[in-house]
């Protein structure tokens, strides 16, 4: 048999499925939804071909899929799933239960907008709604990161100081269905990296009976939530540790965010996921033309690395935050709120403006990004913000 090539042309769904194959979890429960379908289709093929030992449950809904994951993880298994959009919405109440019971489930979420009107394409409305559910959120830029994040997420979630579920997000269709070059690790390297899952209180350990999910009223609920909050406060360190270890092992470095050109930038864009690539390419061209622009890709949105971000933006005059979801009724969208909040404690911070873009899969291109940098240059020069929150690429 031929040795597996180390580089394959894979789309984001297949890259994440390949990572799941190498992780070989005890159980995967899922329900198909575009654009996650191809991920589960690929993984199902691995199960059918006997390439994994995983017990695959094709549930009758996402609510049931994540419920099965909760049960299996409480029982003592390493558990994974994947979904998108309405599927994540349907998982809602179980999201909080998985986090509240401290179950280290790993889920790929292929970002897709929420209906209505009905639309199957990318924006971040689905996962942004789940940002306070107690799950960690890593946003991947391309299929390579979809692969790398999935492997790292297992060790992050299961870390003894954390024990919280992790979402690995990638842009629907843009990343999930676009084929790119993906560098793959050897099966045994991944196996060694993720190690054996050591459950803390498995239900199947009949020598040590345990109850998951008893009634928890006003006399103890707040204390249990406090433990979860305390664990999340350690998440930044855990993500950093695991990312560093992975970087050394794989030769691809990962941090909580990825700055470009920030060493001398006067204006900067903060952005998540695939649009980071578009932004970096634009910034690169502008820097080659002598313009002092920079950009920061936020890889880890939960926990939000406020200090690192505020440090990177300390000497910038104007910042634009690009949000692929809106915060209807809020003053700006979710990422904008985090970034501006993180800068509030600084004596002198940059002007921060918000661009909501790409809703329902609306394309964003380099000319759009260049336009944002032009607006920022104007703000930096005049010190005046004409409009704090703008909508980029929508027809009047």
């Amino acid at each position, binding site marked *: 048999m031929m040795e597996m090539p180390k580089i394959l042309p894979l789309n984001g769904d297949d890259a994440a499925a390949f990572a799941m194959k190498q992780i070989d979890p005890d159980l995967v429960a899922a329900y198909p939804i575009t654009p996650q379908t191809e991920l589960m289709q690929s993984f199902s093929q691995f199960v059918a071909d006997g390439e994994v030992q995983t017990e695959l449950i094709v549930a009758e809904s996402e609510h049931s899929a994540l419920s099965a994951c909760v049960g299996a993880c409480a029982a003592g298994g390493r558990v994974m799933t994947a979904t998108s959009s309405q599927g994540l919405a349907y998982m809602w109440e179980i999201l909080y239960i998985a986090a*509240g*019971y*401290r*179950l280290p489930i790993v889920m790929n979420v292929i970002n897709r907008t929420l209906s209505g009107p009905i639309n199957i394409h990318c924006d971040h409305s689905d996962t942004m709604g789940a940002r306070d559910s107690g799950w960690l959120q890593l946003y991947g830029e391309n299929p390579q990161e979809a692969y790398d994040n999935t492997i790292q997420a297992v060790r992050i979630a299961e870390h003894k100081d954390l*024990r919280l579920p992790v979402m690995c997000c990638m842009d629907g269709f843009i990343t999930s269905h676009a084929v790119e070059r993906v560098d793959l690790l050897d099966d045994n390297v991944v196996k060694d990296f993720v190690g054996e899952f050591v459950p*803390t*209180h498995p239900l199947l350990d009949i020598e*040590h*009976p*345990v*109850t*998951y*999910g*008893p009634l*928890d009223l006003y*006399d*103890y*609920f*707040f*204390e*249990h939530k*406090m*433990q*979860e909050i*305390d*664990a999340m406060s350690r998440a930044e360190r855990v993500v950093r540790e695991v990312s560093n270890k992975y970087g050394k092992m794989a030769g691809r470095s990962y941090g909580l965010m990825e700055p470009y050109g920030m060493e001398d930038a006067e204006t900067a864009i903060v952005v998540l996921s695939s649009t980071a690539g578009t932004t970096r390419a634009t910034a690169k061209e502008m820097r080659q033309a002598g313009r002092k622009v920079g950009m920061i890709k936020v890889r880890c949105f939960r926990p939000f690395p406020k200090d690192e971000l505020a440090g990177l933006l300390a000497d910038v005059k104007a910042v634009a935050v690009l949000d692929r979801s809106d915060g209807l009724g809020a003053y700006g969208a979710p990422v904008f709120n985090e970034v501006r909040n993180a800068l509030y404690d600084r004596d002198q911070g940059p002007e921060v403006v918000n661009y909501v873009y790409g809703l329902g899969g609306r394309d964003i291109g380099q000319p759009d990004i260049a336009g944002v940098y032009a607006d920022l240059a104007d703000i930096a020069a005049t010190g005046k913000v004409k409009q704090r929150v703008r909508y980029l690429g929508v027809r009047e």
Partner: protein
Amino acid sequence: MTEKPGWKRIPTGGLILTAGNAKEYKTGDWRTQRPVINRDLCSNCLTCWINCPDSSILVEDGKFKAFDLDHCKGCAICVTVCPKKAIHMEPER
């Protein structure tokens, strides 16, 4: 009331790490009314014992002994089912 332990001293995730302790959870303090029995009317048919959803009718030698007020939630099903109308509810103070 005894001081309850803080978040650093309890099992994570709301787990209960020992078995057979549901009876230690005193649900009786949810009650706003308590059942009171008139023993002159009671025929010890134990219809209340059969119907009580919280197993709060205590029986001894085949006869009604007492209400378990640590766990009785005051639902008054016993009042409804008693064929002798021997039980009534009185407000908790």
